[in-house]
């Protein structure tokens, strides 16, 4: 890759020498090209966003492509990362000179959030790795999967979406934007690990990876916000080193490290990565070797220039990294599954890269970037090799494989080259990077020297498991049968070979790599001698240490063949015990908490809520309430009478033992409230309250027929007293609230301004009605919608399973013919002979009069007490009389319409009124006043909001009709049926 980077470098369009500081022609041969520390080049046209969009489009198109083309479609999908790779290559020259590409787009301007992207040398390397490896792995996947693979379309889509998220992550310059991409990679990783949802192991591994990385990500988000607030900017490039240190910064950095270390599977979060090997091998190669797990160390590398000197950045990274490096290496050595061996090797290497990138000097930054690049290439190659072995030989257990090296020399050679880079043999990039690392730590202080010992020991372990990998995969083992493996096609082999070769070529091109990586290292101050990446530095201490590590590693490898006692030595790296226990603990805590708080008892919940109300609202009133001094006893003495009636009836109702008594007393207190309304000067309220109380009493009677006369036994005395205590306390608090709140009122009521506009704009003299149908018509609209829902609920509860067909008059007889009406009422005989004749006669006489009166109330309501509510209730009462006098047949004869249809029509009329005024250019529900002359009638003063009131009227009539049909007629039918529980009976008596 680096080779190609340099070839295309020369084709870069040279920036304008006048406007841009990047004016010198890139001098490739020079070891130290001129650099521009703060040079920036703003990209025209936003190609970066276009590339991100390409990934999104590829992800959306992928399932369809896979359906059409099968696995070969993955080549097409690979176009998105490939385009990104090519795009990145064209900027090699700018990167080499230390330039930066920035792109900023508005995102959420209200929050000052921008889509800010910035690509400097280090992100650029990551872009190359992410897009390059992504392209190759996608091409490899086209051969890895067969056309019968389940969910391949989803795989392709998620994979390329992941590539896009990863690309966005490494170029994001805003901490919050970075977080968004960060979590996107976690989610896509979850989907890819769980590629085979039928296997519980992959579901489990996916969930574990998601939980661990998201938990870290959330901690990191908090850290980002703390850091952003502390620094005054969320721009990654502007969060600089001179922040005031202290406990605040320590907390922020620890939180950010939690995110970074968990993403990179560094101790103590290592366990999720080996489990994630449940994913298909291409996923492991890309996400869990080359790309996603690098996000953590990448973030460390981006922030170290700012925080290397701050506690506890370096200390924490070193401690966790060293443990990971050593434990990971040892655990890798113990594996017998080639893929798991690589997984633990990855964990180990990530620990090492974290150490080096977290140290924060020029030399270590250079070494760290080189290690990062080298690891991506050789580890992806090795994973892909294991994928080929797994697919062709059917196993990846080292004790089941034998003689594969002789049979598949090309595959073996690829693996050997990749392992050479891993264990740091010349002339690979791995060797160059390791030399740089050892030299950097050799030249450092005493702590660096101490860390050097860890690094050499870890490198020796790497050599040991690297050799064990080669031996396990390709060697001929005496007591194992020869492995029969089908040959892999050239397309299948191409990706690992290219990756391995790139690692080798980059070693030869070490000086060029030095030129590309040094702009990142330039962010640190130079300390005397400047290190350069090279294959040969002479006989240096680093070379000696490298040799020591290799020889020790070879020794360890051969020692493993002689004895097996070493394999029982477990290190606590990979056990997910803590995770398991934590998960179990959360489950247990949830059960305990739910068990304690969610008792399932309605009185308990209500009691808690009410006691809180008394405690908080009451407490506030006692300690903070502006207690008034003045109170008047009453406005008129009549209020005293009404009040006494209400209070007596309400208390008696609460104490009643019979349902009927309680109901009657409630009604009495309701009528008392209506009296209060009358005395207050609220005739509309009084009218409505009287009517509603009447309808309520009738409803109660209809239902109480089917309920026991007495209430069930009261519970224990103590519980009863407790309930009464809460009731009294809440009552006292409510009264005190009323007292204090009313006394606190100082502003003049807004309604003082209503009388004039009510007449001028609303066209009505009754201000309450104008408020309902004009000023606050939206409230009324909402209310009638609630009524419709309540009516539907009533009907569905009563009609139960037999609904729909007979719900709304399905069982009703055909409308009576006129000639048959010989009796006082239409069909009194069907409801039995117990109906009172007097009631029938009176009903017959009064019905039409009452209906007419209701219509009068409806139309006069705009100027006098009345309106849609009162009118509708009166009409409902008329229907109620018919029902009470003649039963359900009589009701059907009186109102041969479907209650649901009436409700719907009413709502439609109301909505239509609003829409019409909107259509005529007014605002929704605005009224228009029409004055015109009609023959006979004379002058007509008409306000369009009357239509709205008609809608209200219809809804209220519909509600009452629905109640009568459900609670009246249908319950009658249940009672008449021989079945003791008619509601439970299956379909019977079809319409």
């Amino acid at each position, binding site marked *: 890759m680096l080779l190609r980077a340099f070839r295309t470098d020369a084709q870069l369009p040279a920036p304008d020498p006048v406007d841009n500081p990047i004016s010198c022609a890139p001098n490739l041969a020079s070891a130290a090209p001129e650099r521009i520390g703060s040079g920036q080049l703003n990209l025209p046209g936003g190609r970066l966003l276009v590339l991100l969009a390409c990934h999104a489009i590829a992800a959306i198109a992928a399932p369809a492509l896979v359906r059409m083309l099968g696995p070969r479609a993955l080549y097409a999908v690979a176009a998105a990362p490939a385009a990104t790779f090519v795009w990145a290559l064209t900027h090699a020259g700018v990167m080499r000179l230390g330039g930066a590409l920035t792109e900023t787009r508005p995102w959420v301007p209200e929050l000052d959030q921008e889509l800010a992207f910035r690509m400097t040398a280090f992100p650029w390397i990551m872009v190359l790795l992410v897009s390059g490896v992504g392209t190759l792995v996608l091409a490899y996947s086209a051969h890895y999967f067969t056309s019968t693979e389940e969910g391949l379309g989803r795989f392709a889509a998620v994979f390329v979406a992941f590539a896009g998220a990863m690309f966005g992550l490494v170029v994001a310059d805003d901490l919050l934007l970075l977080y968004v991409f960060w979590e996107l990679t976690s989610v896509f990783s979850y989907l890819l690990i769980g590629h085979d949802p039928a296997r519980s*192991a992959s579901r*489990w591994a996916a969930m574990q990876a998601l939980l661990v990385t998201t938990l870290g990500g959330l901690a990191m988000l908090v850290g980002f916000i703390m850091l952003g607030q502390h620094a005054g900017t969320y721009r990654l490039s502007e969060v600089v080193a001179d922040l005031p240190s202290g406990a605040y910064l320590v907390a922020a950095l620890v939180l950010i490290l939690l995110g970074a270390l968990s993403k990179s599977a560094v101790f103590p979060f290592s366990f999720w990565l080996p*489990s994630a090997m449940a994913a298909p091998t291409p996923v492991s190669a890309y996400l869990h070797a080359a790309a996603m797990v690098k996000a953590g160390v990448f973030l460390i590398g981006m922030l170290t220039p700012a925080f290397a000197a701050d506690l506890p950045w370096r200390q924490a990274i070193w401690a966790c990294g060293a443990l990971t490096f050593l434990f990971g290496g040892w655990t890798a050595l113990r594996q017998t599954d080639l893929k*798991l061996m690589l997984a633990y090797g990855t964990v180990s290497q990530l620990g090492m890269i974290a150490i080096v990138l977290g140290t924060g000097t020029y030399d270590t930054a250079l070494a760290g970037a080189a290690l990062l690049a080298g690891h991506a290439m050789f580890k992806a190659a090795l994973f892909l090799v294991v994928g080929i072995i797994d697919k062709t030989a059917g196993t990846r257990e080292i004790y089941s494989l034998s003689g594969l090296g002789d049979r598949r020399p090309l595959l073996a050679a690829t693996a050997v080259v990749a392992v050479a880079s891993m264990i740091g043999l010349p002339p690979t990039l791995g060797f160059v990077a390791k030399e740089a690392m050892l030299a950097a730590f050799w030249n450092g202080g005493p702590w660096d020297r101490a860390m050097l010992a860890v690094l050499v020991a870890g490198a020796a372990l790497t050599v040991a498991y690297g050799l064990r990998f080669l031996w396990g995969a390709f060697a001929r083992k005496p007591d194992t049968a020869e492995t029969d493996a089908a040959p892999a096609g050239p397309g299948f082999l191409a990706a690992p070979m290219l990756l391995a070769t790139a690692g080798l070529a980059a070693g030869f091109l070490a000086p060029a790599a030095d030129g590309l990586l040094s702009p990142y290292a330039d962010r640190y101050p130079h300390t005397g001698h400047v290190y350069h990446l090279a294959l040969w530095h002479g006989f240096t201490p680093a070379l000696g240490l490298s040799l020591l590590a290799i020889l020790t590693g070879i020794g360890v490898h051969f020692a493993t063949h002689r004895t097996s006692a070493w*394999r029982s030595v477990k290190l606590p790296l990979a056990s997910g015990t803590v995770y398991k226990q934590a998960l179990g603990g959360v*489950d*247990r805590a949830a059960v305990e908490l*739910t*068990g304690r708080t*969610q008792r*399932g*008892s*309605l*009185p308990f919940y209500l009691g808690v809520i009410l006691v809180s109300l008394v405690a908080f609202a009451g407490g506030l009133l006692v300690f903070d309430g502006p207690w008034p001094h003045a*109170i*008047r006893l*009453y*406005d008129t003495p009549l*209020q005293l009478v009404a*009040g006494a009636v*209400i209070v007596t009836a*309400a*208390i008696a*109702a*609460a104490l009643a033992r019979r349902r009927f008594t309680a109901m009657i007393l409630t009604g009495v207190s*309701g009528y008392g*409230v209506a009296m209060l309304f009358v005395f207050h*000067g*609220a*005739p509309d309220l009084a009218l*409505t309250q009287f009517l509603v109380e009447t309808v*309520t009493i009738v409803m*109660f009677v209809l*239902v109480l027929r089917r*309920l026991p006369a007495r209430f069930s036994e009261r519970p224990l005395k103590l519980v009863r007293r407790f309930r009464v205590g809460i009731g*009294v306390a809440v*009552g*006292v608090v*409510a*009264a005190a609230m*009323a007292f204090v709140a*009313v*006394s606190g*009122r*100082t502003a003049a*009521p807004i309604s003082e301004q209503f*009388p004039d506009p009510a007449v001028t704009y609303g066209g009505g003299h*009754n*201000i*309450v009605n104008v*408020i309902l149908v004009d000023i*606050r018509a939206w409230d009324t609209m909402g*209310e009638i919608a609630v*009524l419709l829902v*309540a*009516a539907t609920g*009533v009907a569905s509860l009563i009609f139960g399973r037999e609904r729909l067909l007979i719900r709304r008059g399905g069982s009703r007889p055909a409308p009576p013919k006129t000639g048959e009406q010989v009796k006082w009422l239409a069909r009194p005989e069907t409801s039995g002979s117990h109906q009172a004749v007097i009631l029938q006669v009176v009903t017959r006489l009064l019905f039409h009069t009452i209906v007419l009166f209701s219509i009068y109330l409806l139309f006069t309501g705009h100027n006098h*007490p009345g309106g849609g509510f009162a009118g509708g209730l009166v009409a409902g009462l008329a229907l109620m009389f018919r029902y009470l006098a003649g039963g359900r047949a009589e009701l059907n004869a009186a109102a041969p319409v479907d209650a649901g249809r009436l409700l719907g029509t009413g709502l439609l009329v109301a909505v239509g009124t609003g829409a019409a005024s909107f259509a005529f250019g007014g605002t929704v529900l605005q009224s228009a006043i029409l004055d015109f002359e009609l023959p006979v009638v004379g002058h007509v003063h008409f306000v369009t909001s009357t239509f709205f009131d008609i809608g209200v009227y219809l809804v209220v009539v519909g509600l009452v009709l629905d109640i009568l049909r459900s609670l009246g007629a249908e319950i009658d039918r249940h009672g008449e049926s021989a079945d003791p529980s008619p*509601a*439970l009976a299956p379909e019977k008596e079809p319409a």
Partner: protein
Amino acid sequence: MIPNLVYVVVVGVLIGAGVTLLLERTLTRVLIGVVLVGNGVNVLILTGSEFGTPPIVGETPEDGMSDPLPQAMILTAIVITLGITAFLLALAYRSQQLLGHDEVQDDAEDRRIIDLAERDEGPDAKENGDDGLPHPVYHCAPGKEGR
């Protein structure tokens, strides 16, 4: 504004009696509680408004008019209470039909969780047997170590 004592007492008694009934388990009592609390809240709203003559322009002088805005709010609330009452009545009837009583029972699923908590078990204990491990999947996770 100076509060009216009659209203304040009525509010307290209606809400107190209503809340006492709300805490019962019999649905009919709960329903009566809802009606009483509804009326109490209506009076509470009324308490904060000016007493006076009906707010009808032309029939009464604007100076002595009662405040119309709370009246419109209360009117809406009255009718909604009617809808709620009908619904709760239907619920009580349904409960009587299905269960033979109109008592509000404790939630069965919540009882199950309380039982689990008393036995000190996790949420999945039932399904996974009593081996103490909430997730048997652990055993076959690919992250296992070599033997």
